[in-house]
């Protein structure tokens, strides 16, 4: 298990239904455990598609997506969904929270779908709630905010609540899709430091996607999606 890379893409090719040109074509991408990967990609470079492939929401027409040694492409769709909730925490640019749930309920959401995440949250913090509170405290969410409606939180607070959710139950991988781009410069840096610290604390591998190269300093490796994506260079209709 430890020998296997966290993520391994082999000759992956994905085309959106109804389109003739491939959106993504990646010959190889390997991410090892504990890496902090910064994936740079301007908008339209296929970032979201790559993340959906890693989450098992999409499957490639060609090639293989292996996560934690498991071949997502060969799994049944419902198993892929279960796999995602067990092993991957997601964090998006905006609107991460379910508006009708409280802060705590939003954080514990993955544990409603994943027994594994629930068990790990309980073993880490005695109870799911306890672990959620602990993570929220670590991410500087004041206790007074817990009873607020999530729609009343500031964007920065919402992103930190979402980060707590992505980390709850110790998923092996945290995938962050432009989580800082809605924040101002000072807060971007602070949020990034918090996220990296907590990923270290739960020993999660971080895949961080952004169009903002200034943030790359904090990561162990930077991947330019445009550089490894061959789709643009291929003739149309291939």
């Amino acid at each position, binding site marked *: 298990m430890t020998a296997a890379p966290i993520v391994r893409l082999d000759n992956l090719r994905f085309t959106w239904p109804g389109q003739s040109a491939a959106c993504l074509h990646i010959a190889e991408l390997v991410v090892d455990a504990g890496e902090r990967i910064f994936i740079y990609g301007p908008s339209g470079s296929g970032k979201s598609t790559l993340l959906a492939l890693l989450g098992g929401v999409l499957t490639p027409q060609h090639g293989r997506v292996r996560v934690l040694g498991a071949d997502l492409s060969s799994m049944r769709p*419902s198993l892929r*969904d*279960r796999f995602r909730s067990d092993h991957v925490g997601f964090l*998006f640019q905006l609107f991460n929270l379910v508006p*009708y749930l409280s802060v705590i309920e939003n954080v514990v*959401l993955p544990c*409603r779908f*994943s027994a594994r995440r629930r068990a790990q949250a309980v073993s880490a913090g005695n109870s799911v709630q306890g672990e959620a509170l602990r993570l929220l405290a670590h991410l500087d969410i004041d206790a007074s905010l817990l009873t607020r409606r999530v729609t009343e939180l500031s964007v920065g607070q919402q992103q930190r609540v979402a980060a707590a959710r992505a980390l709850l139950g110790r998923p092996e991988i945290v995938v962050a899709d432009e989580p800082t781009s809605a924040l101002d410069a000072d807060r971007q840096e602070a949020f990034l430091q918090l996220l990296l610290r907590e990923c270290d604390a739960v020993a999660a591998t971080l895949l961080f996607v952004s169009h903002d190269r200034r943030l790359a300093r904090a990561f162990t490796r930077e991947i330019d999606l445009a550089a490894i994506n061959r789709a643009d260079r291929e003739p149309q209709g291939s």
Partner: protein
Amino acid sequence: MSHLLYLAGRSAWNRRLTLGLTLIAIALSVTLLLGVERVRHDARESFAQSVSGTDLVIGARTSPVQLMLYSVFRIGEATNNVKWESFQHLAAHPLVAWAIPLSLGDSHRGYSVVGTSTAYFDHFRYSGEQTLTFSAGTRFANLFEAVVGAEVAERLKYRAGDRIVLNHGASDIGAEHADKPFTVVGILARTGTPVDRSVHVPLEAIEAIHLDWQGGAPMPGVAIPAEYVRKFDLTPKNITAALIGLKSRAAVFRMQRYSNEYEGEPLMAVLPGVALDQLWQVVGIAERVLLAVSGMVVAVGLAGLVAVVLASLNERRRELAILRSVGARPREIFLLLMIEAVGITLAGAVAGVILLAILTATLAPVAAARYGLIIEQRYVASGELVLLGAVVAMGVLASLLPGYRAYKLSLADGLTPRL
């Protein structure tokens, strides 16, 4: 599953205004549908129970339904009478166990006056084998005595010993028989039949109050005081109809034929059950139309539900994408939407049943008083259960649509909704 129920509940509560209105629409449509069915069912029941012990109803030739309506249910008026001699002749037939003469046409404050004999109290049966009983007083024994039904006594607050005046004709507009008042001597216990809304007097009294009348009006210059009427022959000349009980029910067709072929005058004998069936055949068309319209109203309510849930889907695409990112399968998204729509349907159905129970409780006395329609107090009858099941089944089918749409959306959107 429980986590989906929880999420569906919280999400629905978040949109409680629109969903609440939809729920009310469904509840009202269910109330309407079940209400139509209940009134239909109970109307049949209360009609059938009104003449349970009678084998034949005899009257002048008319349609069987009309004869039943005026003689038993006090609806409408007789077009022709039966001669007293004819009644006596038929009553004396060896197959006949008992015969109750009925003389109708007068009224008391809107309630029918029934001239009859004491055989009425001995032989009339309703709701199976139940006989008439008195809640107060006794049957009439003298000329100007009256026995009132339970509804009459309750509405007009009559007690034994009260004096009442009859009106000529079926409405209060008719002239009063004010010179010959009656004394209430008995009050019948409630039966749930037209008996409750009747004032019963001796046949001879009907004759007596019309001694000085001719052609529906008092004869000018002639006034026969009450104390002198006994000097006249008060044997009735005509009656309106007769209820006949036979010694053996097997002889009913023989007796019917005998009555129909009676030579003294053209008569008609009908079996109450057969006549009621004819009535329901006629009414049945209207009933089916009413049921169909109520069914349509339910369909409209459910269409509204589907529209509301579908309309909310666009605003909820982010929410569904979040749920997908934390591990919800498309199948679970489908179920989430199903639960919401089916839940609203179920809640609407339950609310409809409760609303109907409240309406029945408040309106049943009015229906009983005004129309003699006895609506039973109950939550759901078996016939209504079938309709309720059909509503829920329709709701489940209708819910497939938003469920399927959400399923497709969440497959297409994945983790990032394309808005």
